[in-house]
């Protein structure tokens, strides 16, 4: 058994990697467009659910926090708490991501309209 690389081996590997990168970019481009929704909870109680598909401004908890949905992403724009951790957090858009404002007990959680990323795991 000769353990030498042949030309077709290299070609095969290049094709596999090309397909992998192509699939990755396709997913990056298509995957983020599927509009999900954000669920807003205050003190554990669901205050409302809003689509990520349309741009809107949401006043949460009677105005202590203001959430802005723009371009399919939800971002906390203002909060009356002193630390502003939630405001400084990046915008969320993918399933399972969340913005949490502890002082006001506000939780903003993304629920993608598509299924969760891990439906099944085998080993």
């Amino acid at each position, binding site marked *: *058994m*000769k*353990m*030498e*690389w*042949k*030309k*077709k*081996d290299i070609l*095969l*590997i290049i094709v*596999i*990697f090309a*397909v*992998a*990168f192509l*699939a*990755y970019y396709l*997913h990056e481009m298509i*995957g983020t467009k599927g509009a999900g929704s954000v669920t807003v909870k205050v003190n554990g109680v669901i205050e409302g659910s809003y689509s990520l598909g349309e741009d809107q401004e949401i006043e949460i908890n009677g105005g202590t926090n203001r959430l802005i949905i723009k371009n399919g992403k939800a971002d906390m724009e203002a909060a009356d708490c002193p630390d502003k951790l939630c405001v400084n957090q990046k915008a969320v858009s993918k399933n399972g991501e969340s913005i949490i404002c502890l002082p006001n007990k506000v939780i903003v959680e993304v629920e993608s309209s*598509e*299924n969760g*990323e*891990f*439906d*099944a*795991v*085998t*080993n």
Partner: protein
Amino acid sequence: MKNRVAYFGVFTALALIFSYVETLIPISFGIPGVKLGLANLIIVIALYKMKLKEAYLLSVVRVLLSGLIFGNYFSILYSLAGGLLSLTVMAFLKKRDGYSIMGISIAGGVCHNIGQLAVAAFVVETFHVFYYVPVLLIAGSATGLLIGILAGHMLNRLVNIQF
């Protein structure tokens, strides 16, 4: 050859043992679903040493047995799809000259993952699992390469044994 049945038994036992050894290795690649696939080492060797029909039989027998012992109904389904697709592609590439054992094993590793993913997509009834394709392609190439190198070295040492 009269010892064919005995050799087949040995190969089956080896494949099963490798499946078991694999469950003992605590290495996680940090990615769910990615594993070394040590049992495929035996399949690759069988591909070079046995008749294709026997290699297929070995593949099915080892999937059924290891599935019943270490896994469950679904793991049999996944492994069967992966194993058969992998073996088919490897046999095809082997017939066409110009691929080394590493190349053939890489194709096998990748196809193993693709076959499993196809079943996963069918079982979960969503094509969303295909976002996982890039990960599995790269992982399959890496494990396939490793198995190919191992199989090559083993075949060099088994050169006097012909089944």
